């Protein structure tokens, strides 16, 4: 197990190097001169100033040299300096990261608790009115765009009922996260409910469930001890796969609710064409995605002792 963890952690290095290379190439072929973006774009810059800026940022260096420098700095944890604000990218990310982390975790918690509960009960009560309503809700849930749901929540709970704030972070107040977390979590809740239900239906036909029933075990014990535990494996896989999408989706939700997270920083940097910050945000999101998948792999062994990594 320890070997597996070390091997998986070591795999991060080439993955991050390749991804950083792809993103570096992509972002460095953006039309327009980055030197122009460093200064005040409203004023025309003289040739001397442009030359000075190009020298300062090493923009005249060949591509491979610039990437080499970037990679060396990246491995040291230095993500560069923002073209627009002149501040360290890591400093900007450090400020925004807790907001995104809180939002993503809160949304995922809502999605997991709601999705597993609804899907499990739906599967157990297959064909009932409850099952039908849940599944109609689940299909609708995966079809509604989260940013529209967010806007509708703002309209209902902030404009009409005036019980929850319509946006902003409020210094980390939980009330400010309720609407964004639900807007983001509902689509994933629907997806998890669908997978949980399908998994329950599969497990219910297994021989060991028939054996448990023939032993005369109570329905409660069968459902929670035999079905529930075995349902979790595919559900956890889906949660792991979807968490990356959820982290990415925070970009849109943060815009809807004006939350100062990584997503807002990314969108703002895209509008301003601030390449070092764009690179930093994207790498951080991808790194988060890789870490989540790693945790999911470790979790498998705890949930299903049959899985052993060599």
């Amino acid at each position, binding site marked *: 197990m320890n070997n597996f963890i070390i091997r998986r952690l070591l795999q991060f290095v080439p*993955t991050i190097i390749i991804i950083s290379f792809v993103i570096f190439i*992509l972002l460095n072929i953006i039309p327009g001169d980055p030197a122009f973006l460093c200064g005040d774009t409203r004023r025309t810059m003289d040739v001397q100033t442009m030359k000075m800026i190009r020298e300062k940022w090493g923009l005249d260096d060949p591509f491979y040299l610039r990437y080499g420098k970037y990679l060396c700095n990246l491995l040291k944890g230095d993500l560069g300096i923002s073209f627009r604000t002149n501040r360290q990218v890591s400093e900007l990310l450090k400020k925004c990261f807790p907001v995104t982390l809180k939002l993503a975790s809160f949304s995922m918690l809502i999605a997991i608790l709601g999705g597993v509960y609804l899907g499990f009960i739906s599967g157990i009560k297959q064909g009932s009115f409850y099952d039908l309503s849940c599944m109609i809700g689940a299909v609708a849930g995966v079809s509604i*765009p989260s940013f529209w749901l967010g*806007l509708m929540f703002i309209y209902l709970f902030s404009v009409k009922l005036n019980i929850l704030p319509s946006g902003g972070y409020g210094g980390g107040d939980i009330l400010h996260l309720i609407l964004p977390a639900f807007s983001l979590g509902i689509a994933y809740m629907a997806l998890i409910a669908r997978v949980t239900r399908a998994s329950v239906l599969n497990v219910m036909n297994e021989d060991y469930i028939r054996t448990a029933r023939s032993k005369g075990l109570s329905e409660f014990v069968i459902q929670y001890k035999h079905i529930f535990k075995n349902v979790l494996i595919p559900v956890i896989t889906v949660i792991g796969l979807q968490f990356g999408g959820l982290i*990415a989706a925070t*970009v849109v939700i943060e*815009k809807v609710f004006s939350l100062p997270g990584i997503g807002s920083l990314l969108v703002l940097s895209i509008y301003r*064409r601030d390449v070092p910050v764009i690179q930093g945000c994207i790498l951080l999101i991808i790194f988060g995605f890789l870490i989540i998948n790693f945790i999911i792999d470790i979790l498998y062994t705890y949930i299903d002792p049959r899985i052993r990594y060599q």
Partner: protein
Amino acid sequence: MKKILRNKNILFGGIIIIFLILITIFAPYFAPYDPVEDSDLIRALEPSGRTFLMGTDPYGRDLLSRIIYGTRISFTLGLIIQTLNTIIGVSLGLCAGYFGGKIDDMIMGLTNIMLSIPTLILALTVMVVMGPGIINLCIALGFVSWTYTCRIARSETLSIKEKEFTEAARALGASKFRIIRKHILPNILGPIVVIATLGIGDAILMAATLGFLGLGVQPPTPEWGAMLSRGRDYIWSAPWLCIFPGLAISITVLGLNLLGDGIRDILDPRLITKKYKN
């Protein structure tokens, strides 16, 4: 045919999609006003009423007409993006599965790298490079979301490649290209059709998301995501600018999801067996 009509998902999804296709084709006949040119600031932000069923936007344009024309844009975008990523995904999947070896390693390596980057983030990066616009949006989304199709095409090709009829074609001296085109491709189409149908909804959602972020289709073109983004500023005074475009996106994606689920039920015999088993 009976099996298709008995499937509720296909029935409901089909009705929604046929209705939307009709709107797409006959948009000029359904729309009461021109979606771009017919603007008048005197009638700006008028709420729903007899003259304007869904109200007007800040430029006095009829929202209903813009949503009707938006159907045309979103559907076209969804179809083009999905066609592009199906062509890329199937071609790469077929090559990886059929030729194997280094070609397989290279294609699957690229697929795995792309899978480790969330699609929205990759699409955002490509859009930053290419700049906003309809054609750029199609290229960006078409080139970033082929990975799933590629994996399915590859695994299906791997199993079909070993079948007797492929062996027989090879023994008869058929060229590799002919075997892929005549024997493998027609046999992997079932699952590909399912993924492609389900993918159109995702493509429309993704295009709307990028439009909402201001990186997709640009105003004054009536695209639903961009309309929602503009409507966000007026949620306190003119909520209809947010309600109707979002409703249009949700109904379209719901129709496509239902249709995709239904087609999967019919084309994937494993799922049908499971259904009857339960």
